[in-house]
């Protein structure tokens, strides 16, 4: 009886088995990569806002502190986008004729809010609190990146739970002195301890010190963020 399968069928089957295994893994890997991709997480995407507000210009160029506009970041869970009034504090005096600022003046005159596109969006079941992070020495730049270099703001991190947990498991990697919270360019080596004037601090050393000074806990149980 003639053979049903030619001899290369063996090779085909072997290749097929290997291929199936690789393919399954590849598919899983692709899915995992996909959920982390900027397409799904929305990171690295700058939106077209109603007003082309440049953080780079206002923060880096003019040196305005974050908290001048985002007043509630230190106080409550939600860090506010400033009311039109805040823009008009300056822009009723300078650049009063600018066409770029027309929507701001319109908003102020007509009492109509400016509708900004939301870039950072957590799932509804995750409760993030700005104030505690800021109070405990997590700088703005730690999560938001170098806002002072962004012409248009984009979301820096993935905002996935693993991204949160990275820091919650080891907060010392990101802690900084409380007076450097809004300093975008801060690094640990800028830290100066009067007691040890010559010491150059690394983030690990400084993080460990701040962690104990500020009573920073590594909270990774569910109800920390989910209620």
């Amino acid at each position, binding site marked *: 009886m003639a053979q049903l399968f030619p001899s290369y069928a063996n090779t085909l089957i072997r290749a097929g088995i290997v291929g199936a295994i690789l393919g399954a893994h590849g598919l899983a890997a692709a899915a995992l990569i996909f959920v982390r991709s900027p397409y799904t997480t929305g990171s690295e995407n700058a939106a077209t806002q109603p007003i082309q507000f440049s953080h780079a210009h206002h923060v880096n160029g003019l040196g305005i502190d974050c908290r001048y506009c985002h007043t509630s970041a230190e106080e409550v869970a939600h860090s506010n986008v400033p009311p039109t009034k805040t823009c008009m504090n300056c822009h009723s005096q300078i650049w009063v004729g600018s066409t770029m600022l027309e929507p701001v003046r319109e908003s102020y005159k007509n009492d109509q*809010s400016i509708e900004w596109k939301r870039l950072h969006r957590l799932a509804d*079941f995750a409760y993030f609190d700005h104030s*505690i992070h800021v109070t*405990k020495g997590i700088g703005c730049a730690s999560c938001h990146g170098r806002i002072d270099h962004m012409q248009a703001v984009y979301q820096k991190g993935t905002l996935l739970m693993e991204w949160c947990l990275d820091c919650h498991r080891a907060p010392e990697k990101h802690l900084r002195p409380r007076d450097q919270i809004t300093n975008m360019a801060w690094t640990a080596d800028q830290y100066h301890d009067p007691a040890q004037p010559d010491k150059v601090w690394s983030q690990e050393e400084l993080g460990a010190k701040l962690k104990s000074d500020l009573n920073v806990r590594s909270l990774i149980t569910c109800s920390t963020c989910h209620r």
Partner: protein
Amino acid sequence: MSINTTPTAPITSAEAPLWRSLEELLETPGYQDMLHREFPSQAGEWTDPVSRRSFLSLMGASLALAGLSGCRQPSGTIVPNVREADGSQPGLPLYFASAMTLSGYATPVLVKNYEGRPIKIEANTTHPSFKGENPDSNPGVDMFALASILGMYDPDRQFAPNNKGAAQTWEDAFRALNTRISELKKAGKGASVRLLTGQITSPTLASSIGRFLKEVPNARWHQYEPLANDPNYVGTALAYGKPLETVHQIHGKGVRAEVIATFDCDLLYQGPAALALVRQYSELRDITKSEEMTRLYAIESALSVTGAKADHRLAAKPSEIPALVQHLAAILGVVGGTEQTGLSADQAAFIKALAADLLQSTHTNGKKLEKPVARKATLVAVGIGQPPEVHALVAAINEKLGNTGKTVRYLEPLAQHRPLATTESLAVLAADIKADKVDLLLVIDTNPVYSATGDIDFKSLLEAMSLKPGKTTVAVAQYEDETAIQCQWRLPLAHYLEQWGDALTYDGRAVIIQPMIAPLYHGKSAEEFLAGLTAHESDPMATAGSSSEREGHDLVKSHWKNWYESARGTSPDLLKFKTFDEFYTISLHDGFVHGYTTKEQTGLKLTDEVAKIARAATLKTSGSGLEVVFTQDDTVYDGRFGNNGWLQETPKPITKITWDNAAYINYATANALGMKLAKENKLPGLSEREYVAPAKEFGTTAGEHGRAYVDVLDITVDGKTVSIPAWVVPGVADNTIVLQLGYGRTRAGRVGGHLIGKAKAEPSKVGNGKAGDVVGVNVNAIRTQDSLFSARSATAKVNGRTHLLACTQGHHSMEAEGRAAPLVRVATVATNASNPHWVEHDPSLAGHKGDKATDSHAKKDDHKGHDHGHDHKEEGHGHGKAIPLTLLPNADDNNPIEGYEYAEKVHRWGMVIDLNRCTGCSACVVACQSENNSPIVGKHEVSRGREMHWIRVDRYFQVTYHDTLENPSKVRTYHQPVPCMQCENAPCEQVCPVAATVHSYDGLNDMVYNRCVGTRYCSNNCPYKVRRFNFFQYTDYTTPSLKLMNNPEVTIRTRGVMEKCTYCVQRIRHAEIEAEKRTVKQAGAEKKSITRKKDGEPGKLTARINDGEVVTACMGACPANAIVFGDMNDPKSRIARLKSAAKHLNYTILEGLNTFPRTTYLAGLRNPNPNIESAQG
């Protein structure tokens, strides 16, 4: 049948059986079967027939969701304010003081707002009429106020003015009405203008009405309030010659009522003072105090919340109650009191013992005194259901006992425009309409078409009037209700959370009502409406364009400005204010008007009338016929809350029925009426499987299985008949039928019943729980002007139909060792004094009774090394004492997860529920629902045991089966709130395959919705049955106004997710963050470091949450202060102090299961009169 008033000898839970439903008492196999289940029968199964169509639509929706979800985050916008209001920050809740009115009287509240949305009602802790002298005591809120949030956002409210259905503007309405009023005035027909309102205490509204009546000469003001205070006003007028407001004060201001007797009076649940009285009563029953607890006697026909709390209860027919008061008056020597001869021996003995107890005390804490001591203060109270003569007689009794000026104080009537009995007033109006004397009728915030008594056919009168040419009828109401729909003009009324206003509390203090939000549905307040009719009389157009919010505020503010100017010189409380603005701002902030009190009437003299009354013919017992009592409904009041799903679904405190009213009768009456469950009648649409067996085993259970098909009774009074399902309640007086007002609404809304077009309410279809049907039965039809609250000579017969009632009393029964565990522990004060260890007998370990001594020692040694702060009873009296195994790692180990160690050292959250204080009022249930965004599920789902309340209040009866049938006075009732026990060794956590329920670093049993996949293993393994599963998509994701209502701090749960009480973890986390921030800042300022040790370290700071910073929703609402939550590691915290002061009463339920609950209970105590026991026992 003999009525024996002897309480069973000293009661511990082991002696007389405690039970929730009769099946439990009889241990029927059906009940046993239910005990073993996680949810009541049917909850877990899909028993609803699924049509192909709905199956396809469900599957289609699931597929669509599966396709859309998962990937990208939805985008959104950020809309900041143009100008930020002072003090407001997005995400920061703001609290404002205001007041809710009910039948005119104010309940002070604090409203929590997020970004201008009111989302939660809290207690106003500063109001002097409600707060206690003890700084720990919390005034609480009632369920009506708590649920008013839902009432405001109700999408069924009337949303715009209309004329016979044609949309109009307010300007149109004002123009038309002003023109009409001018015409009538010119024609000299001012007398044909009529105003009909409910009972009103608001000074501003009263002056608005006064102005209107002045503008329109001869116009008349009628009032109609179904649950008005009239018998009391008329009664005090008989006793003292003028109508008076009776105010009770049982604790505080140096007063302490030692004995309280209530006659047909639900002192602790009904009436405007109930909230304050519950708090006062709970302080009189404080088990940590050495004074003897106050003794409460309740003489009543129905089983009320007060009766459930009473130490002695006498069930008497409504017609017997006047005679019993009369008898008491005679024994006490009140002028004109005559001893009644028609009383049974037991009744006479009861009243005799009560009279003796009111005069002097012979025992303290069960020990006989050497010499009797005269009582310093007592109280006799009577309910609004009793005739005026009884009120007058009770006033005389209190006078005789020396209570006047102490526990009973009299004020000028608070209801405006009195005395004129409101029902009489409606009858006058009805007669005038009939006689064609009325051309313009303005109905403001009252619903007589629904609630008028059966002898006034207000509906046809109003309907006919509206159809007649030349007549104008106007209804200003929140809903297009039964009355509004019969009127031509239907104008939306603002909710109290949307308007300016004011009202008086039960004791005559004023509260200013301030709006939290602009009217959602274009409503105006009653003041604004009347202002629109009066202020611009010459120019009807002038109201157009003026801001209604401003208008209402101006009216209220100018009223109080006038008052301030006039009272300034006289009231010493006003001296501290320099200007009116200061006075006004602080009064608004504090939630009461400083310096405003209603003067107490002193030097009152009893008139001779009282002696006459005492002899009057009205006070006599009737024959042996059936009698009917009409009462306020425990959850929907007089029907005005019919469309409030939270209230409809809250199980009624005593009967645990939801979504219905029923005729409550006792077992003997049920037997006499020949009631049988319809076990042979196979009901359409009901499969054999759905209908579980209890009925077959016990004929008159009235179906206590949660899903009950009960007999419908035809009840006839004076030729009028209503058909209403019957429900057996042990404790109701013999031959008495108790009916609740407030059901059978035909135009309440989609929740509370809405009949479309000319459809008639069909009793058989009533209350199927589907939209468009009517919920419950309207019993107003068989009330008359003469029998407002009770009717004699009624007849009842079983009409052969059956009705489905959704009752939760059998749901979530707990078991231990294969049988129902009675988890309430109660004893008398005498037992407690003689045997302080009586509590340490765990019924869940019954069967080990013998080895008490041998067991305890071995086990005690075992847990020495492990103890890390559990509340184990050190004495080791418990037999079968559990070995502490816990998920929490030992604090002394070097634990790799530092958070756990931290929690052990700083906070250990716990809750104590004091059964001695709890009245079962169920405010906690509504508070929890409001705080935690719990959905309502509807009658159909409740009847399958799928209700979603995180805290339930279990109700237990304690009586033998024989006495259930024979002696309604012997029934004892207990309530036990059961939230999640927050077990340290939680059975639910061990079985969750996806770790969706785990312990947090501070020892809470977290529930993680986003992890839950819905296996329901956890609820299967929960011995306390406190987990709730979203079997369907219960939460309304679509109605826009309901979305605004949700608490933004709590996740909204979707279908297929398990949920449960979290100890309000959102509040704990909020307080924790605040404490951490505070400490870090303080440490920075003081250059100190922070320690994590629970007792602190010298020179270091601790990030401790102070006691009182976390108040759970249930605790904040509890007027009895029965729920105490706090940090057990803080020795100064209220919970720690309570636990140490009442250590011997502290127990855990199902202790033998080794779960180590953080929620524990303080056993209840009763204080029966030792003389009643020794005399008869």
